[in-house]
């Protein structure tokens, strides 16, 4: 048998269809035997014509008649040409690796599925999922699928390479040559087609115009195709360039740009068109709702800084019952205006040296912000003593209104002092021989030098020329005062000793009596002195008793002694012993008998358990409570014409009495001017606003007033340090001088972002970050 003649293999043997395996063995054997022309009569056998590598480089031609089964030419080799003389079943050319396969009829589903090389020519149409999963291996020419008719559904799914040509000649569906939903997941290759289609996967492929090169390739290979299927007469019909289109796979980069309407366009073209201008809420608000950055300026800041200069009292000022602007005085000194700082104080107290400089526990220093960080507060005692030289302000002319002051102690003098400074005449009545109350009568000289007190009392007398001493007033006298004066201020203090009801109390000397005597060096004490009551008055008694010759001084108290400060130190220096808790049962000639039965031997027993006011001269219209006069916040008693201040209202420090006198005078002044008295005190600044880290914690004292002033934290008042200007990250803060010679720090809202750095850095707590005004 000549090798050029067809070697015929039938799929039927003895009237029985042979298995695909047997047919495959026989074809392979024929090739191995050297046959290169093989005709197979197929009876549905699988995979005919593939894998004929045994022929090597030599061409093998397989002609199939009858009905081939699925996967004709699968894994076909480049040496193989397969011609199916009728229609083909599924998966023709599956995994084709180079064979040329010609089908002279239709081919069903899966034609060219996973083909990588070779050519498949279909003389009819193909079924579903043709040209799917095809590849183009760069080592070889791309695979080609030529279809004379049309493609079935899901054509070219996941096609990754190769060329498909759909000629659209008498397609099975004349309205759609590409079938339903072609090219889904297609990533490579081209599809030439001719005829109508019903869409394709726009996400994966795009239409492109045929280039001349494309057209040349197409017409050249079209002739090959038509020749292979024996339909060369159709060339003229098909070779009309205007009817061909080309689909190419999008590159991965192109896939991202899917032709979806942008949301911006949707908003403008659909959303707003339906809802109206401004969208969903355009009819309800005129607010601009457009997007803004996270960090904003101007009105869009959530928080804004406010320069709250002098809006709050410094703690020293707020702590001072007299109301002296302590911090303001230090500021003046910082500015080199020492005289002003000194003179200023007389507007608040007649006793800046006596009280601030010597006798006051200096609540201003106790309250000083610096104390919170254990920094030494500026020394107000030093400034107080310097105030002895303070110059009186010029007094205003008298208004003609008159106020009687009953009691010439610190409270009464303060009230009179203030009233006179406000232009009203104040007249003082006092029981004692000397003006000054407790200051001149009771407080030991050791604690207040005579010359200081006298100098200040002289200054007082210049302001208050009318003082009536040694006047013990009765109820009728007071009524007369009410008739004669516009207002009466009761400042009688607490003179009556509160004596314990113990056996032998007649042996006890009240502390006030003792101190009054000792002040004039007239007091007589034994060697052994027991002081009942170990408060500060008790301490004064102890110190004075020591001065008057006592050697063994004991203070007893029923609980821990409340004494503190200078007084306590003085008592201790006098060698006084503090015994507690002890209660007294009786006072005998031997001494003080305690409730424990123990007897403390004493030659002199002095009781310092407090005093209470003597108020029997008051009219009934003035109500009292617990022995003290009741007043409102302006020190007005239940008799509106009568005010009461000092220890007669509430026991307190000298500064409390002076402060009460001042407030009462302010209220009376307001009433005299026909106004309602008002509390005009600024609130105290929050300590946490002051930054003490700016100060040296090792400073343990001050050499002079200037050093004190420099270390003052200037709470609540701008010290003009300029730190905020430097700290502001936006350079939004600037210093602006105003017409009155002062200055203010101003914020440029168009630069400020509301970070609060100014508030964070400000040493004095001036800057505050507050919520911006609500926008809606």
């Amino acid at each position, binding site marked *: 048998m000549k090798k050029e003649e067809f070697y015929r293999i039938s799929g039927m043997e003895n009237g029985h269809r042979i298995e695909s395996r047997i047919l495959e063995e026989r074809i392979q054997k024929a090739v191995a035997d050297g046959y290169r022309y093989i005709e197979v009569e197929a009876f549905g056998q699988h995979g005919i014509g593939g894998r004929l590598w045994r022929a090597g480089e030599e061409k093998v031609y397989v002609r199939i008649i009858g009905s081939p089964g699925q996967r004709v030419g699968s894994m076909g080799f480049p040496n193989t040409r397969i011609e199916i003389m009728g229609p083909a079943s599924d998966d023709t050319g599956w995994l084709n690796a180079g064979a040329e396969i010609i089908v002279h009829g239709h081919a069903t589903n899966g034609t060219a599925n996973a083909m990588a090389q070779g050519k498949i020519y279909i003389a009819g149409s193909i079924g579903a999922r043709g040209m799917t999963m095809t590849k183009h291996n760069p080592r070889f020419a791309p695979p080609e699928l030529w279809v004379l008719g049309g493609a079935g559904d899901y054509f070219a799914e996941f096609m990754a390479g190769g060329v498909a040509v759909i000629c659209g000649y008498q397609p099975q569906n004349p309205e759609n040559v590409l079938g339903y939903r072609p090219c889904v997941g297609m990533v490579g290759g081209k599809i030439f087609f001719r005829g109508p289609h019903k869409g394709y996967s726009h996400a994966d492929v795009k239409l492109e115009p045929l280039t001349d090169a494309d057209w040349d390739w197409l017409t050249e290979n079209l002739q090959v195709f038509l020749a292979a299927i024996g339909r060369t007469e159709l060339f003229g019909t098909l070779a009309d360039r205007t009817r061909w289109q080309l689909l190419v796979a999008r590159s991965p980069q192109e896939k991202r740009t899917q032709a979806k309407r942008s949301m911006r366009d949707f908003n403008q073209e659909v959303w707003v068109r339906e809802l109206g201008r401004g969208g*969903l809420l355009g009819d309800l608000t005129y607010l601009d709702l457009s997007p803004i950055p996270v960090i904003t300026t101007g009105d869009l800041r959530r928080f804004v800084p406010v320069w709250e200069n002098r809006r709050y009292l410094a703690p020293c000022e707020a702590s001072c019952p007299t109301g002296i602007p302590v911090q303001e005085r230090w500021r003046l000194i910082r500015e080199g205006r020492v005289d002003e700082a000194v003179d200023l104080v007389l507007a608040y107290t007649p006793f800046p040296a006596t009280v601030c400089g010597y006798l006051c526990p200096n609540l201003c220093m106790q309250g000083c912000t610096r104390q*919170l960080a254990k920094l030494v507060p500026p020394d107000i005692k030093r400034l107080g003593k310097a105030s002895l030289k303070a110059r009186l302000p010029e007094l205003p002319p008298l208004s003609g209104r008159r106020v009687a002051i009953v009691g010439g102690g610190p409270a009464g003098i303060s009230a009179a002092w203030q009233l006179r400074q406000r232009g009203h005449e104040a007249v003082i009545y006092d029981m004692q021989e000397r003006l000054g109350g407790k200051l001149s009568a009771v407080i030991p000289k050791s604690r207040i030098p005579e010359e200081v007190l006298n100098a200040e009392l002289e200054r007082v007398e210049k302001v208050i020329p009318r003082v009536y001493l040694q006047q013990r007033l009765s109820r009728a006298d007071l009524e007369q005062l009410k008739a004669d004066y516009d207002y009466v201020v009761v400042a009688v203090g607490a003179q009556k000793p509160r004596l314990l009801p113990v056996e032998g109390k007649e042996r006890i000397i009240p502390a006030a009596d003792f101190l009054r005597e000792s002040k004039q060096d007239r007091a007589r004490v034994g060697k052994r002195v027991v002081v009942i009551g170990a408060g500060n008055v008790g301490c004064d008694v102890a110190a004075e008793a020591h001065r008057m010759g006592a050697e063994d001084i004991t203070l007893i108290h029923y609980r821990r002694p409340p004494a503190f400060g200078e007084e306590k130190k003085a008592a201790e220096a006098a060698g006084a012993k503090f015994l507690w808790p002890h209660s007294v049962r009786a006072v005998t000639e031997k001494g003080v008998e305690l409730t424990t039965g123990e007897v403390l031997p004493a030659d002199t027993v002095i009781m310092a358990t407090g005093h209470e006011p003597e108020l029997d001269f008051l009219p009934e219209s003035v109500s009292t409570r617990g022995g003290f006069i009741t007043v409102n916040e302006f020190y007005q008693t239940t008799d509106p014409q009568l005010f009461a201040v000092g220890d007669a209202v509430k026991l307190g420090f000298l500064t409390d009495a002076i402060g009460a006198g001042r407030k009462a005078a302010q209220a009376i002044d307001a009433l005299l001017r026909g106004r309602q008295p008002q509390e005009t005190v600024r609130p105290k600044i929050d300590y946490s606003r002051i930054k003490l880290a700016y100060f040296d914690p090792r400073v343990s004292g001050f050499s002079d007033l200037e050093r004190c002033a420099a270390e003052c934290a200037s709470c609540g008042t701008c010290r003009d340090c300029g730190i905020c200007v430097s700290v502001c990250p936006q350079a939004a803060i600037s210093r602006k001088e105003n017409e009155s010679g002062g200055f203010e720090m101003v914020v440029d809202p168009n630069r400020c972002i509301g970070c609060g750095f100014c508030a964070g850095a400000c040493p004095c707590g001036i800057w505050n970050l507050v919520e911006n005004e609500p926008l809606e």
Partner: protein
Amino acid sequence: MFADGTITPSTLSVKDLPWQVHWDRENCSFCGRCTAVCPVHAIELGVHRKRLLHAPLLGETGGNTSSSNVYQVYYGIRQRTDPAYACVGCAMCNLVCPNGSIIPYRSDEIDKLRFHINRGGQPRRRGGRRNDPAPGILDRIKFIRISMLTDPALDAGRHEFELRTLLGRVLPPEESLRLYREQGWFPPVREIYPLIIGAMSFGALSPTMWEGLQMGVAYLNEELGMPVRICTGEGGCPPRLLRSRFLKYVILQIASGYFGWDEIIHAIPEMKEDPCAIEIKYGQGAKPGDGGLLMWYKVNKLIAAIRGVPPGVSLPSPPTHQTKYSIEEAVAKMIQSMYMAWGFRVPVYPKISGTSTALAVLNNLTRNPYAAGLAIDGEDGGTGAAYNVSLNHMGHPIASNIRDCYLNLVKVGKQNEIPLFAAGGVGKHGNLAANAAALIMLGASGVQIGKYIMQAAAGCIGSESDRCNICNIGLCPKGITSQDPRLYRRLDPEKVAERVVDVFLSFDTELRKIVAPLGRSTSLPIGMSDALGIDDYYAAERLQIKYVI
């Protein structure tokens, strides 16, 4: 605190707080952005003093000590420790920092703040979520039926899917035939996408967030053909939306406060479209048994207009509806009324919080031919404001609740008639499609999401670690839940809408990936519990799904 400052029981150190703000002195440029952006003022510029000590080597100076002591002042970003200003961990500071110099870290131990956020006797209230970082049951459910050859295996990428569910009462065939013959009333049924944006009111959400969500939903419907629906929550509905064709994408909610309903009623004659459905809210998963209160300072002009109230008044939504005295009455009366409003053309269904009494409600609904479904909101639901105790400790997990309800419907043969909708923590760990699919296969006809869409579409930074959670005070740093234009204008509705679209498209792909191996491409595998497995024996028993290890 000052050096000699006193301490109170509630004096805390930074260490005691849930979040510690780490600040890098080296790289800070002191630009002020962090302190400007911090929603709760947890950080501020601090002034510090530094001490530089110098001492010579004594051997070299021969005992002459030229030692020195110098103080320097420097600045820093300081974290405040007052409980009122405790860092909430939102990390907006980090977001705006140009140099990456600041970031909050979660404390390495349980914070002490929690013992002190009840000052004034007010227990803690917050927004957000349950704060349970453990993976929930939904996250542990696996889809174990992967049909490669046994079912028609579908390709999620290649095959066509149309995942839809039904909202409305589906009648049994014999009943339908009878009504057809008698020309009776058919309950309205909507074919909708199974992922619904759940109830979040205008008020709870900012205007920009609300508009963004609505715009995204409209886009999904009109540009992409996905019938996604969104529920208004209780707070009314902007008049323009009521009168637009977009209303058909909206489920209107009515709740115990009835806010905005007179405006809705007034709009009925002018409506171009019926709303998708009416949801009657009886409960909320995040705070079961509790109501809401929109504080007066949040009731600005806009909210007031939409809710139909004057501005500046507090708006209470009581825990219960005021005029319902029994379950039968509550269900029948409300459903009837709401049906009447739109001529019986709009489905009406109640929403309850997850509860052990859900079956009682469901049984009642099965007997009510008007009930269009039942939505159940589980314990992991979110809220704009609730008591901590309600959020953390009240409510029922959604998985077993929905499962019990579904199996009960199966028992009475009505599982295809009354749809169940599940909500509460769907996607709380990011597994939106998996959680949704699990719930659907447990028996839900669809799921509702809230927090997930806030996180995905607007960048909500809440987490299960008690991060941020300040929706209740209106200071949302992303502008999602704030009514302050200075905050909510940070949010661009268009961008939110874009993200809504992203979320639904990606969800759709993921859902396909799950249902494709089950051979489902159009009908949802509702109740297809043979596809579910879990590696917890008791959970498997309880849910009647497979125990797999």
